[in-house]
């Protein structure tokens, strides 16, 4: 962590970390005035917000739907299948999707062509790429995300449902008036904790899926730091970018955790 001081210095590897000159916050000045950084910051927030808007409700819906499955064995098998992708790295999943959605030999584009459509370049089209990120992200994480909601749902006293049935409630009523209110505290907590991680737009996934054609929309802070720092060897500048991200990130996490701690007993410290 000591190496972060290079973010405030004009770092010359030959002089070492201590020997390099202080440069009066120049990297931070460059950072806030550079177009490149503005773009990656905007992309990061945009992708994160989309993940919250679509990726966050998905496991809740899946859990509620699974909860309605009466056949125990069927439910268990579906659930087991649903969290298979979470055990795989994005390197592997990127490979799986590149083949699955390949223009040349992927089954999806094959069916599109059979039905008379034009093949779709899912991963090289700027307009589609973000959609692909969000949807493959949901595909990967939804089953695992549902586990925690299903655990809460299974702790609901069955008598509540039974008495609602006697009062003439159908399953939709039961879901809206019993299951969802019961899940609300968990949902609130997880939502606030997710907000705390808003500067993490999913490095592993994006780094393995993006390419120069979609760089403009998919470049996030983490990928920017990687390229600037390790490919262009601008150590000091990218250390400053990384430090900025970490400091803001920690502030977000502290805020979100203290909100959670205030509204419940589940704070993480």
């Amino acid at each position, binding site marked *: 962590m000591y190496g972060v001081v290079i973010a405030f210095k004009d770092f010359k590897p030959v002089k070492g970390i201590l020997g390099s000159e202080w440069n009066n916050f120049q990297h931070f000045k460059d950072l806030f005035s550079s177009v490149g950084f503005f773009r990656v910051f905007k992309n990061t927030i945009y992708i994160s917000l989309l993940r919250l808007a679509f990726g966050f409700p998905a496991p809740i819906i899946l859990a509620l739907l699974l909860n309605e499955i009466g056949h125990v064995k069927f439910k268990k098998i*579906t659930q087991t*299948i649903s969290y298979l992708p979470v055990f*795989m790295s994005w390197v*592997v999943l*990127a490979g799986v999707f590149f083949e699955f959605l390949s223009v040349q*030999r992927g089954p999806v584009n094959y069916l599109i062509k059979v039905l008379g459509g034009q093949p779709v370049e899912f991963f090289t089209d700027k307009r589609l790429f973000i959609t692909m990120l969000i949807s493959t992200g949901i595909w990967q994480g939804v089953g695992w995300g549902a586990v925690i909601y299903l655990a809460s749902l299974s702790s609901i006293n069955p008598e509540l449902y039974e008495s609602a049935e006697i009062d003439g409630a159908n*399953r939709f009523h039961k879901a809206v008036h019993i299951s969802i209110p019961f899940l609300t505290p968990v949902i609130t907590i997880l939502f606030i904790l997710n907000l705390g991680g808003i500067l993490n737009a999913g490095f592993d996934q994006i780094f393995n899926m993006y390419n120069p054609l979609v760089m403009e929309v998919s470049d996030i802070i983490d990928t920017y730091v990687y390229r600037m720092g390790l490919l262009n060897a601008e*150590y000091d500048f990218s250390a400053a970018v990384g430090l900025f991200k*970490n400091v803001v990130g920690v502030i977000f996490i502290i805020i979100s955790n203290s909100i959670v701690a205030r509204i419940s007993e589940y704070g993480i410290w």
Partner: protein
Amino acid sequence: MSILKKKSIGGTTFDVLNYTFMILFSISIIYPFWNLILLSFSDQAEATNLGFRLWIKTWDTAAYNYIFTHNNIPMGYVNTIFRAFAGTILMLIMCYLGAYPLAKKNLPGRNIITIFFLITMFFGGGLIPSYLLIKKINLMNSRWVYIIPGIFSTYNMIIMRNFIMSIDKELEEAALIDGANYFDVAFKIVAPLLKPVLATIALWSIVGHWNSWFDCLIYIKDENKYVLQLIVRRMVVQSQGEQDFKSLEAFNRLSEIKIHSSNVKSAVILVTIGPIILIYPFLQKYFVKGIMIGSLKG
């Protein structure tokens, strides 16, 4: 009860839709992997434009022969298995050594030490300072770089600590009176009681190591030290966007033995996830228990 069991038309429609949705959802998860299996076993002509298939006519293992003989996959396995097991065992020992004393209420400075550890959970120097540090301490291009940076996990240590604190104190006190020292108590009495927790943490760690690639990408130059995931990345991901000359070269050599590049790519992916899939039924049971352990902390 018979009145209650009777379902409305709306309820039945919902059931049909719900079951259909679940089946489609399961297919959407399994089919991409099945597609990959078919691709890896199809012959060159079929692999060029496989399209939508549920089965293939001839099953050809040439791609697998190729990757196990002409490729660094076998060495990748050795490296991945090394980091998964050595990394996990050392991590468990280090975390336990931190967790046991911190579970003792009478440890001087206990809170300060805990806060010190917790800070590292939320704030780090970032990519570049870590990179310069690894360079400085000569871990570049060494297999130990897979293990040493992650040898201590605050999160796992806290989980262990909380479980140790929930163990009955009298058991330890009795052993201490019988003349055992703290090391005996920690390793012979307390540790065995933590077996289920340790097993869950170990499985998380093994899967985490198995799936890691970024450290290998930035720290390792020698191809003999690559882990499986990075080999996959170089073949599958980089040749899509950033051109990887090495893997292209390798693919060109392939043309003599009649394997399509997609055969190789899919076979490499499959041998990488194979071990995970094999132990998956066992894994997922422990993992679902593990998510509950995580929520118990604090």
